[in-house]
């Protein structure tokens, strides 16, 4: 393999029809009478696969969810995907599609437009999300009322292109999201790089910000937007031994927790000042941290390439497996990505934790 570039070629074809060349043995002539093919195949996996226009159920008792439409008692599928029956709700989950926001999702977004008292945020969905001026922390105190001068200097808080993480506060009638950043864990993102994976690979969970080995923190947006950064003081505070940052349970670390609290209160004010919107990175990011971040970015892309769901454990496991490649730049090759994916899955099987 060349150190400079890999080129894979194929003659005589438009693309690799991957392993689906086994068909067309059958005659393709058409008779006036319709030959109805068994459409109920594909249940080997136990999941029912349906395609648009297909009858999903004749039972009128179901409530019809996304991906379906109905006529009289019949429910039909409107997308290609798998049938999901939750309680009395019948829906079809498409195999692919854009991110659909849900209330409470922790997402990463990019400012697309600064509007009247609101920002429009690209979150990789069907529509931009809205971030109201009233839904962000304003400089100079967390509980301050927004003023007219704030409206005029919105671009000095967040401007086009800026990245932030936020929570979906509510959904509008048409399915678009309203965001908020009224917590110190949300807001403008700094000190790192952005990467993107299909949103279906991110599992909704309680926590989407993880500190990784090598002094790197990852924010896994539910929408598939990911931010990798150098672990900040705040990040490490969050991961400090339980109780320390929460300051709730007293116990043997009571004294310590008091101290932690006082730190966080002073920082709270500090963070609520202009500091939270400043466009500067931590000046102490070392070259080795940068290299670690690049490696993590490649590891995440490899997991996405193998269509493996992305979790903190898998990122760490893939990161460790990737150490066999001394140069993280070789992880952009397909073979390397595939073997990394296999390594992760094998390691999971060995440990017997299928997630």
């Amino acid at each position: 393999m060349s150190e400079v570039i890999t080129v894979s070629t194929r003659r005589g074809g438009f693309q690799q029809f991957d392993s689906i060349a086994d068909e067309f043995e059958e005659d393709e002539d058409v008779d006036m009478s319709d030959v109805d093919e068994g459409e109920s195949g594909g249940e080997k996996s136990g999941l029912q696969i349906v395609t648009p226009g297909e009858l999903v159920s004749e039972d009128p008792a179901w409530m019809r969810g996304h991906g379906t439409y109905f006529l009289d008692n019949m429910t039909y599928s409107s997308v290609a995907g798998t049938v999901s029956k939750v309680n009395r709700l019948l829906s079809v989950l498409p195999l692919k599609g854009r991110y659909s926001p849900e209330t409470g999702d922790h997402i990463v977004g990019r400012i697309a437009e600064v509007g009247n008292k609101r920002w429009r945020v690209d979150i990789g969905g069907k529509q931009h999300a809205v971030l109201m001026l009233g839904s962000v922390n304003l400089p100079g105190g967390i509980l301050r009322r927004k003023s007219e001068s704030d409206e005029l200097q919105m671009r000095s808080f967040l401007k086009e292109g800026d990245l932030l993480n936020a929570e979906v506060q509510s959904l509008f009638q048409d399915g678009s999201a309203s965001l908020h950043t009224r917590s110190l864990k949300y807001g403008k993102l700094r000190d790192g790089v952005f990467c993107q994976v299909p949103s279906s690979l991110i599992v909704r969970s309680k926590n989407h910000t993880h500190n990784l080995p090598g002094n790197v923190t990852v924010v896994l947006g539910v929408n598939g937007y990911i931010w990798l950064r150098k672990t900040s003081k705040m990040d490490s505070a969050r991961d400090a031994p339980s109780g320390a940052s929460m300051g709730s349970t007293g116990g043997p670390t009571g004294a310590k927790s008091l101290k932690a609290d006082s730190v966080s209160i002073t920082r709270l004010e500090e963070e609520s000042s202009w500091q939270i919107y400043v466009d500067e990175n931590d000046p102490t990011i070392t070259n080795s941290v940068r290299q670690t971040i690049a490696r993590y970015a490649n590891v995440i892309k490899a997991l996405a390439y193998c269509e493996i769901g992305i979790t903190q454990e898998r990122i760490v496991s893939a990161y460790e497996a990737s150490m066999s490649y001394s140069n993280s730049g070789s992880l952009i090759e397909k073979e390397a990505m595939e073997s990394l994916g296999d390594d992760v899955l094998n390691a999971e099987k060995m440990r017997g934790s299928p997630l």
Partner: protein
Amino acid sequence: MAKDIEISTSEAQFILEALKQNGRLDGRSFDQFRDVEISFGREYGDVTVKMGNTKVQCRISCQIAQPYEDRPFEGLFLISTESSPMAGPQFENGNNTGEDEVLCARIIEKAVRRSGALDVEGLCIVAGSKCWAVRADVHFLDCDGGFIDASCVAVMTALLHFKKPDISVLGDRVTVHPVDEREPVSLGILHIPICVTFSFFNPQDTEENIKGDSNSEIAIIDATLKEELLRDGTLTVTLNKNREVVQVSKAGGLPMDALSLMENCHKAYTITERLTEQILDVIKKDDAERNKYATLLSSENARET
């Protein structure tokens, strides 16, 4: 489009509800074509067609030109359709790339020109170097729906009506004789295509249209502008009286059962027959009118019969 015509919700509901109850605003039945009025201008090939409030004018002109290199034995034939804000605010000056305008122009093109309604070989004067170029200019004067149908009648009547100057060819020399010198000659018309447009409405939900078997979709013939604005789909069938389908265009819109589309084609045929007759009739009448003194003015000696 320059301005979209808006139709109020209550009016739209009223029209649709009426259709569901088998009624149309102007009292016509679903299969009833509006009466067609054809009138002629002073010159040959100047025709105005009126259908209700819709008014289309077509004028034929010709000149001598060079044939296309790859078709030396054929004359040229061009149909140009011009819409202007005069016909309605939905049209824009000088911009004929709107969806409806393009479709309308293409259908007339296919119905008349591509189907060979005009004998283009008869337009050849000297093979490869000289031929007649016939041009039909269609102007939309007033729009109340049914442009395609009216234009087609206008173009065909005008072509039948038109007379080009007589010529004599002597080697490479072509002499065009002025109309007052020699009787002009008619164009060769091979068949008369007639367009009939159906508009479809779906009285029920889309689900019923796609999955149901009631086939309850409504099809009306010759919609007015308001009906056109509200319709879910359209079909233009072009036929001639030889029972030939010249062109069919159902460019998307409400899915319709194949059998009911066939039924529509058959309905269109009866209208085709009637309109063809009407056209031939008015041509004959106009010809008689124009030539009523012909026998008197003839320099020939009268013969005993």
